[in-house]
């Protein structure tokens, strides 16, 4: 524990203790009669209104990784990092179109996960399994990245035992994590929803203060942009190419406008089909709650745009730049910037905001992955007669396993690896777009056509991402690849292949009279808006297909 600033440390610890208390107390919030039901533990009783949903989804969409990695990308590469702003802009109108339909049909049929819907829509356990596996695969590295976010803050704070053993060095991270795991186990989705209030308050405070204050220290916005422009246009001595781009270029390869647009579109399409975002959505009380939130959440996007600009502030501040270069880790740009710019008590507030900003989504993500495992793997394939009580117990344990796995990722693997895995996670989750989002509108696709499409998309995406390289990294270097001479986001090329295969195979399978499978959903259920939460079904997955099982 060397060079730890006592004030900063005390404030971070105090705020951490506060949210821990809230996390445990949350189990009593809106208490249901029987907490041992997935609708309660995993979806908090499906009763959140506009206000709570705003905090929950906000806490879910904008993670610690966002606060660390987006400015880090801007710091390292310039304008391409702003694709994050462009994609959050696009994500809301896109989600406004399809998310209310998913909410309605899930409400009517008591679906807990996106894979539950796919099972009900296509009557296929296999297709649902592919969606569930994709969801879990994509979520794991995302949870790990939340830990990387906490680690970045801890590193700059100087917290961590002076030891070369990673497990000793990361003791504070372990403590934070065990606490998170325990209150998620106890309180379920109620915990992150309650903690999100604290998180958002802290983040709004530090972002607004930073955006107004830091430029005055750095000679104003024109100076910040000027330094950034000069910096990114300068030629790097190692690669003999410009360090980055200040504005997306019109060239064919590199940080081009096309790359920017496809990255933004692909990420926007992927954002609201991530299981943890769907979990947050399904916890909403009414259909209108979703629609209202799509127009209220962009307020958060403004904050994201400002956060991205922290990357340029870090470039313009010589002290921060020197610190980051010395550490050799651009992920530390924002923590170092704050440490240099602010008095230590305010650094404490900001760092606590980032760390708590990691806990909220990490909890929701592990709950979402646990729900997927429980509903679409455990109950579906191993124990079809699992009671709600058993399902909840399994989900609680699964959430612990997910977190342990993520902890392993964060501590054992090099950080660039987990970041690239997360980028790959976006490519993967996008492959569930045809079955999930298109499935909300049409039953035209044949279920056995969607599976090969999904498989091809996953394979192409993974291989293409593996083959990307830069002068410094041999594999997994980027989420964009050159296709027909143009730089494109891999997720987009993979999902196009995925769709093409599904479109070609569907008429073939239909001509061969391969069974279509039952569809338990009805047209009007996609626009339904039941006031009361559905009465929890007794057991089994996919209500319709097990409709013979009498409600308890």
């Amino acid at each position, binding site marked *: 524990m060397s060079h730890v600033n006592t004030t900063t440390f005390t404030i971070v610890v105090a705020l951490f203790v506060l949210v821990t208390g809230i996390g445990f107390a949350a189990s009593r919030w809106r208490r249901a009669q029987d907490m041992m039901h997935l609708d309660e533990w995993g979806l908090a009783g499906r009763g959140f209104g506009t206000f709570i949903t705003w905090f929950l989804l906000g806490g879910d969409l904008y993670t610690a990784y966002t606060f660390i990695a987006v400015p880090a990308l801007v710091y390292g590469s310039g*304008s391409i990092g*702003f694709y994050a*702003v*462009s994609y*959050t*802009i*696009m994500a*809301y*109108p*896109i989600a*406004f*179109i399809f998310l209310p339909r998913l909410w309605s049909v899930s*409400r*009517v*049929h008591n679906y807990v996960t996106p894979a539950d819907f796919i099972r009900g829509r296509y009557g296929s356990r296999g297709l649902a399994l592919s969606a569930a596996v994709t969801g879990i695969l994509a979520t794991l590295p995302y949870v790990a990245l939340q830990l990387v976010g906490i680690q970045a803050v801890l590193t700059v704070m100087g917290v961590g035992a002076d030891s070369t053993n990673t497990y000793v060095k990361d003791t504070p991270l372990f403590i934070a994590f065990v606490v998170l795991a325990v209150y998620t186990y106890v309180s379920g989705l109620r915990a992150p929803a309650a903690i999100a209030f604290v998180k958002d308050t802290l983040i709004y405070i530090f972002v607004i203060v930073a955006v107004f204050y830091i430029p005055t220290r750095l000679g*104003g*916005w*024109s100076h910040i*942009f000027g330094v950034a*422009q000069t910096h990114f246009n300068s030629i790097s001595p190692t690669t003999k190419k410009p360090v980055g781009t*200040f*504005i*997306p270029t*019109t060239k064919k390869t590199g940080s081009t*406008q*096309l790359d*920017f*647009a496809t990255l*933004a579109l692909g990420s926007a399409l992927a954002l609201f089909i991530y299981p943890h975002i769907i979990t947050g959505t399904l916890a909403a009380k009414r*259909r*209108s709650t979703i*629609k*209202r939130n*799509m*127009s*209220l959440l*962009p*307020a958060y*996007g*403004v904050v994201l*745009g*400002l956060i991205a*600009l922290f990357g340029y502030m870090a470039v313009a501040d010589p002290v921060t730049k020197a610190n980051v270069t010395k550490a050799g880790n651009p992920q530390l740009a924002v923590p170092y910037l704050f440490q240099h710019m602010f008095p230590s008590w305010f650094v404490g507030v900001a760092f606590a905001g980032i760390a708590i900003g990691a806990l909220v989504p990490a909890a929701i993500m592990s709950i979402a992955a646990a729900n997927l495992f429980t509903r679409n793997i455990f109950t579906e394939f191993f124990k079809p007669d699992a009671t709600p009580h058993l399902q909840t117990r399994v989900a609680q344990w699964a959430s612990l396993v997910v977190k342990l796995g993520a902890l392993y990722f964060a501590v054992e693997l090099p950080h660039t690896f987990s970041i690239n895995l997360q980028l790959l996670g976006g490519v993967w989750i996008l492959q569930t777009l045809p079955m999930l989002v298109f499935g909300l509108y049409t039953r035209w696709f044949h279920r056995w056509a969607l599976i090969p499409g999904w498989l091809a998309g996953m394979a192409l995406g993974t291989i293409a991402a593996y083959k990307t390289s830069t002068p410094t990294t041999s594999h997994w270097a980027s989420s964009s690849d050159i296709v027909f001479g143009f730089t494109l986001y891999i997720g987009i090329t993979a999902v196009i292949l995925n769709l093409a295969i599904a479109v070609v195979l569907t008429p073939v399978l239909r001509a061969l009279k391969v069974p279509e499978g039952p*569809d*338990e959903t*009805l*047209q*009007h*259920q996609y*626009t*339904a*808006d*039941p*006031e*009361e939460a*559905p*009465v929890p079904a007794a057991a089994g997955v996919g*209500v*319709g297909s097990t*409709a013979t099982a009498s409600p308890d």
Partner: protein
Amino acid sequence: MAQPPESPGSPAAVPVPERRSPLATHPVMSLLIAVLLIAMIACTLIVPIYARITPRIGDFPFFYFYLLAYMPVVAIALWVVYALQRRLASQDGGRS
């Protein structure tokens, strides 16, 4: 196919077995909603519109100003869409 149970305890869900297509009953309003949603996506997807340094707005290069200013515009536009849909629904005596 097993008939799925109507969601129990929700009388609101029962009376609309066949919804009229809003497109057929309100073509102009529906078109307006569609145009708004598509325009919102297109104006950020088509990067050449804003990938430029000038004109500077204050100290901000155009690219950065555009992206920052877009967010509140999306919020307002989506609220308008939501309000329009509600009006359609209430005219039909249905729900949003």
